[in-house]
């Protein structure tokens, strides 16, 4: 079959690879009808995440049709079922899964020993996302093996297009969880850093969950225009001071809830804003990659919440932790517990409360995937979200 395969930094190729087969009784094989490139894939593309190997198949946001089912998955799935596959693989039986903490399932990471060593304790297996999380072949391919398939799926009823439901596998629940874990009150201002696909979903989620005011921060004009369409007040961090504007918009008190939908490849403003200057004075120089975290910690209202869907890989530098401790901030973060939300979100899509396909700007064949990685990373051609058709 054909698949998008990782070969090294900024080197993803459209290769021929062996077809996947059932390996475990709970497996299923899915023929992929649509898949997407996620911001998390960019961290692999740019090789900021350790643990990739030449030959790894990319992709963790995908859907399709079940074409083969292992003996123990038959109770839940049959050939011909249309499914979205969540990027977090979960067993449904371990302590964590029983609590709904699917992204830290204790059993789905087949490289548990490695993860135990690195993280202290393992997290869930993920598709197409480093050997630290199981080294499972991803879904930017014609076919994919889904482990623990009796749990790891969302069944899709007829009458909905791929485009409407595809993002149930990742960015929609991710944006939703980012907002939900802020426990939004009708008096809250939410500030969201990053207007990429995750930021866009977070904005809509925050509006639907009833935030008084949603403020979105980025520097890419078309992303800001899409954020505004979703109901956000926008700040272009290259043109204005984020801290000054956020304080202005909250009567000088700062937003109650701050969300980092940027992650480890954050840009620092070229014209350093005043807060950055002050933090820098207090802390001496630092690497710019934790810029958003620092900005959130600084501007957040005391006793507020920081919600962090943005992915971090390892160590960050010069984090003013004392500021956070003294302000009594609550930190919420993690890979999304996708299946925790999908029933509710699927219903909302069916009822027409939201149509997540608004975010798609590019649809191409799988063969054009490698070029699209670059287009998406460099924000060329107005690109916000790419859907690939194998």
């Amino acid at each position, binding site marked *: 079959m054909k698949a998008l395969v990782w070969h090294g930094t900024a080197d993803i190729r459209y290769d021929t690879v062996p077809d996947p087969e059932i390996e475990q009784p709970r497996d299923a094989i899915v023929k992929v009808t649509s898949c997407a490139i996620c911001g998390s894939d960019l961290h692999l593309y740019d090789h900021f995440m350790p643990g990739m190997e030449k030959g790894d198949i990319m992709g963790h946001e995908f859907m399709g049709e079940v074409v083969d089912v292992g003996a123990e998955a038959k109770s839940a799935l049959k050939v011909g079922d249309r499914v979205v596959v969540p990027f977090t693989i979960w067993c449904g039986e371990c302590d964590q899964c029983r*609590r*709904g903490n699917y992204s830290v399932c204790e059993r789905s990471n087949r490289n548990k020993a490695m993860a135990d060593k690195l993280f202290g304790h393992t997290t869930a297996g993920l598709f197409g996302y480093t050997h630290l999380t199981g080294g499972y072949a991803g879904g930017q391919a014609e076919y994919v093996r889904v482990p623990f398939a009796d749990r790891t799926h969302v069944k899709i009823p007829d009458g909905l297009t791929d485009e409407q439901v595809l993002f149930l596998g990742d960015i929609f629940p991710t944006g939703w*969880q980012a907002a*939900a*874990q*802020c*426990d939004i*009150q*009708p*008096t*809250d201002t939410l500030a969201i850093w990053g207007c990429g696909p995750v930021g*866009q979903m977070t904005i*809509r*989620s925050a*509006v*639907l*969950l*009833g*935030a008084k005011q949603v403020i979105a921060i980025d520097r*890419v*004009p*078309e*992303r800001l*225009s*899409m954020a*505004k*369409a*979703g*109901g956000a007040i926008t700040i272009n961090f*290259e043109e204005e001071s984020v801290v000054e504007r956020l304080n202005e918009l909250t009567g000088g008190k700062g937003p*109650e809830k701050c969300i980092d939908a940027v992650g480890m490849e954050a840009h620092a403003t*070229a*014209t350093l804003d005043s807060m950055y200057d002050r933090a820098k004075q207090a802390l001496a120089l630092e690497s710019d990659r934790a810029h958003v975290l620092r900005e959130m910690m600084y501007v957040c*209202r005391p*006793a*507020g*919440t920081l919600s962090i869907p943005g992915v971090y890989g390892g160590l960050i530098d010069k984090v003013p932790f004392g500021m956070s401790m003294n302000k*009594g901030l*609550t930190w*919420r973060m993690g890979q999304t517990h996708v299946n*925790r939300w999908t029933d*509710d979100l699927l219903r*909302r899509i069916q009822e*027409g*409360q*939201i*149509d*997540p*396909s*608004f*975010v798609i*700007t590019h649809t191409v064949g799988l063969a054009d995937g490698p070029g699209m990685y670059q287009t998406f990373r*460099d*924000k*060329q*051609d*107005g690109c*916000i979200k790419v859907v690939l058709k194998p």
Partner: protein
Amino acid sequence: MAYYRRNSSADRMARGLGWFSIGLGVAELVAGRRIARWMGMEEQAGLIRSYGAREVATGVGLLAMGDARPWMWGRVAGDALDLATLASAHHDGNPRRENVATALGAVAAVTALDVLCTAMLHREEATAWTPHPDYSDRSGLPRPPAAMRGAAKDAPIPADMRTPDILRFQPAAAAPL
């Protein structure tokens, strides 16, 4: 409209070279005769002063905030002229030919910077996000956002994701003790 991006690293480098142009240009204008003598090129003092004027002009162009590329090409052409002029003075009959060699080295180094910066500016245009599409019609919501505010207030928020009461922002009167 030409594409250029304020404050990218290429852009900042171009502005830096702009200041360098002005500095060098003023030096050539003011001290043209001394520079010429130092290189054993006395009869060319006027030429060096005119080069100074050229440097000042490109420097001002670079700093004028617009598209830096034409001015950077101006710098590259000027470098070629400088190199050719210096090369003509680098011959056995010039007792100061070592100084000329020093100047040649310096101009060559600056030329390399100019070429690099020009290439960076052009690469930037190649990867530019022009034109910016307008996505202001892509809300994803069936009604204007203001009308959708709170439409999902009924959503189940699991207990582990709720803020402890004491940390919840609510009207002061209702605050838990």
